[in-house]
């Protein structure tokens, strides 16, 4: 076993990377495409806002590494039921967490394994790409890149 890797590649990350949830297209939903031009990772995010003004469905399609795919999978589960402002806040909070290693208030435990990507600086963009793409979809922008 690769013990030192357990912080990042915990079973939950490997599971979501291997068998991503919500890995599908939503026709007619708000959509954005995110690219990481350095490594070729590509993510399409779809967000459906329901009558109550909250996210009734979120899905994604990704071509990339396990971290990117697991991140998209966990993200689409996490944002369901949030309104756009809350989803943006969650996204900004997660991205800050992944970059700094400092956990902002209100971040769900379920994202902790993914946020440990902070220990792997060259991989942070893999984890944040689905989130910046989500923000672009919510903002009505068609495209995003991981910064």
């Amino acid at each position, binding site marked *: 076993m690769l013990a030192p890797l357990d912080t990042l590649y915990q079973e939950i990350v*490997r599971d979501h*990377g291997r068998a991503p949830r919500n890995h599908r297209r939503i026709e007619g939903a708000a959509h954005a495409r995110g690219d990481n031009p350095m490594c070729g990772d590509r993510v399409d995010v779809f967000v459906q806002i329901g009558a109550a003004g909250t996210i009734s469905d979120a899905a994604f399609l990704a071509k990339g590494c396990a971290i990117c795919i697991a991140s998209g999978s966990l993200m689409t589960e996490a944002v369901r039921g949030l309104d756009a402002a809350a989803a943006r806040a969650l996204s900004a909070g997660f991205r800050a967490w992944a970059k700094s290693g400092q956990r902002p208030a209100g971040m769900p435990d379920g994202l902790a394994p993914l946020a440990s990507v902070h220990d792997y600086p060259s991989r942070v963009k893999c984890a944040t790409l689905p989130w910046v793409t989500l923000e672009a979809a919510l903002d009505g922008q068609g495209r995003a890149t991981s910064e």
Partner: protein
Amino acid sequence: MTHATAPFDVARIREDFPILSTTVRGVPLVFLDSGASAQKPRQVMAAMTRFLETSYANVHRGAYHLSEAATEAFEAARAAVARFLNAASPREIVFTGNATAAFNLLAHSFGPSCKAVVVSEMEHHANLVPWQMLRDRAGVELRICRVTDAGELDLDHLASLLADGRVGLVSVTHMSNVLGTVTPVERIVAMAHGAGAKVAFDGSQAAVHRRVDVQALGCDFYVFTGHKLYGPNGIGVLYGRLELLEAMPPFFGGGDMISEVTLTGFVPASVPARFEAGTPPIMEAVGLHAAIDYVTAIGMGAIEAHERRLTDHAMARLSALSGIRILGAAQDRGGVFSVTVDTAHAHDVATLLDRRGVAVRSGRHCAEPLHARFGVDSTCRASFGLYTTEAEVDAFADALAEAREFFR
């Protein structure tokens, strides 16, 4: 010139490279990214330090002792490069910032004299994008020679690209930085010259691993870079046959590249100063000189033989692993192996390898079209140097197998 002074002893050689005995998060470093940039021996560091402590000043400028000493060291480096490539004269050696700068110089100063230029599908972006820019800027046609499924240059296709006689330059790699393929340079020269085209080789990889004799090859231009040859970064080399360089206009303008300047114009300097505008990489040239002395003392033939054993060993180990695909299967290849793992993305594999101390590159290695050609998004690449051991090749193979299981 390249006689080995002692039997090749990799353990002894590794003592010259302090970084190789370091650890990464508690495990010994297995450095397999020399194709991106090689580590430096003490001899290079010592030569640069000694130069900075005793002889540093700007070159070609001052009428004082230090500037003369620095100029002498800088020009001695040029002469060492000329001997290393067996160029006919040091004047055929142009110092640039790196290999990329050398190709941009070539594209700007030689490119416009061509109706068409041929590159191949397996070029590093450094020998592709400058020609795309030339095409877009000056309308010079760019033709792309195909690569076979084995990862070799398709010479039939090259012949067809040359057939109309419009090609002014064939600019291709001498050794692929992704596939390890060593191209048949003599054949390429014969074919190109037969069609009235000049030839440039990207020797960024090849010059590190085997002896290069530009006169025997008969090529017109040859490019390599210092930092892959165990020297410092910040210095590259463009070799050009003298009569070709003398017919080429300058690229960058500024100090040192002129023989006369007025407010209304300038007269360019002679070759090679014409192509070396501004303060050149002075201490880097001293370091490159030391690196050339270092590999020459070991012997390029001995280095090639060592790396051939490593390459054979790696091919045997990697091809025995299930779920691992090696890109390219060229007959003549060097110690560069780009692989995919069927259960995992290259970045995930590289992160796992890093936890085993194994440093490899993951991604597209500045050769995106070649990855598209082989239908893969990204690969993990192990690349060897003269200090690489069979045990390190084993560590790479073992870690790949472990990664495959981990992501299953």
